[in-house]
């Protein structure tokens, strides 16, 4: 799509394009995504990752659902297998980046001030502060927020959305924009299921399917090392898939549109 030659006009929208207006005025059809500038930067970031053979994963969830704890456990488990790097997004403090560095892994903290989400430009600036040589997987831990981060492409290949069992199992129904964008949903802190009587993992999964999302659902506890193997296996599989894509000059955007469609037909 571009906004110069008219190729963004389709039979579905061309009636919007040419409309008579008053004299001295002219109507211009634009039909461009409002976040086009962010999306361009995101595409640039993605190209950068692909050139270096990096798989970039965006982690999103509410605050306190265990993104950093999951990363700590994941980085420890993958220590001898892959080189990982982490971008941390928070409104304030270096705390999360320090937790990651304590694991011997490179981390850059983005302090957003009052901004409720990361965008592609913030991630791009962060990349300039990092040494990406030899990095296999880059994790981007977004600001804890189930609303805003879903609307901004960062250049990642995959979205992973966490839902801790101390939250409601109807979160996917309450925050459909976020959960629709998930390429994988992780139910975290499952060791607490034994003492909680109001979280049904099957219901959480059913709410996700109601969003027409075929993403795998994995149940785990990073702290108690439960169910981590499935998640690690998924990561290995995704890294292999990313390398296979790079080998044939392709890339991948997070689910939702065309990719989502392929997944649907594969599992239908």
């Amino acid at each position: 799509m571009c906004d110069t030659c008219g190729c963004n006009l389709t039979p579905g929208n061309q009636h919007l394009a040419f409309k008579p207006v008053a004299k001295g005025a002219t109507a211009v059809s634009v039909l461009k995504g409002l976040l086009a500038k962010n999306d361009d930067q995101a595409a640039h970031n993605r190209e950068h990752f692909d050139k270096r053979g990096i798989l970039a994963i965006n982690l999103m969830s509410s605050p306190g659902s265990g993104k950093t704890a999951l990363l700590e456990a994941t980085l420890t488990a993958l220590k001898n297998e892959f080189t990982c790097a982490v971008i941390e997004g928070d409104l304030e403090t270096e705390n999360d980046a320090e937790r990651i560095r304590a694991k011997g892994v490179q981390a850059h903290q983005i302090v957003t001030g009052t901004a409720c989400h990361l965008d592609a430009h913030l991630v791009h600036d962060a990349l300039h502060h990092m040494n990406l040589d030899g990095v296999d997987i880059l994790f981007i831990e977004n600001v804890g927020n189930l609303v805003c981060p879903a609307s901004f492409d960062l250049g990642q290949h995959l979205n992973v959305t966490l839902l801790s069992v101390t939250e409601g199992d109807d979160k996917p129904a309450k925050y459909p924009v976020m959960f629709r964008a998930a390429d994988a949903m992780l139910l975290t802190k499952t060791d607490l299921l034994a003492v909680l009587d109001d979280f049904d993992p099957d219901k959480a999964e059913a709410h996700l399917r109601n969003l027409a999302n075929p993403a795998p659902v994995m149940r785990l506890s990073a702290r108690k090392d439960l169910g981590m193997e499935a998640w690690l296996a998924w990561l290995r599989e995704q890294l292999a898939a990313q390398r296979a894509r790079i080998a044939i000059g392709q890339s991948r955007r997070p689910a939702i549109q065309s990719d989502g469609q392929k997944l649907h037909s594969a599992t239908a």
Partner: protein
Amino acid sequence: MHELAVAQALVEQVEAVIRQHQAARASLIRVRIGPLAGVVPELLASAFPLAAADSRMEHASLELVDAPIKVRCLTCGAETEAAMNRLICGDCGDWHTQVISGDELLLESVELETAPSLAPNS
């Protein structure tokens, strides 16, 4: 909260359109928003004047067009309307569907004032 960032992106885009067409100012800006875009129209409408202050669109009206959610069923092929958190087929109830409308966040068109204004905006 992020609607201000979206409003700022909108102002940048409209500014580019004004420049491209060497117009004096924008008088009407039409944006299409689907509920699945994650942007609240009311919040965008209240953020817009802040983002547009002192620009060549500060007096433009912002028209927000709603885009209803529609899904196409990959199993039975039906196209039906759906609720935001129930994107299942309205005919057969299958969840293997594709959203065909309702996730847009689109600058649809801009009306520009081409004639030099009598009251220059300087």
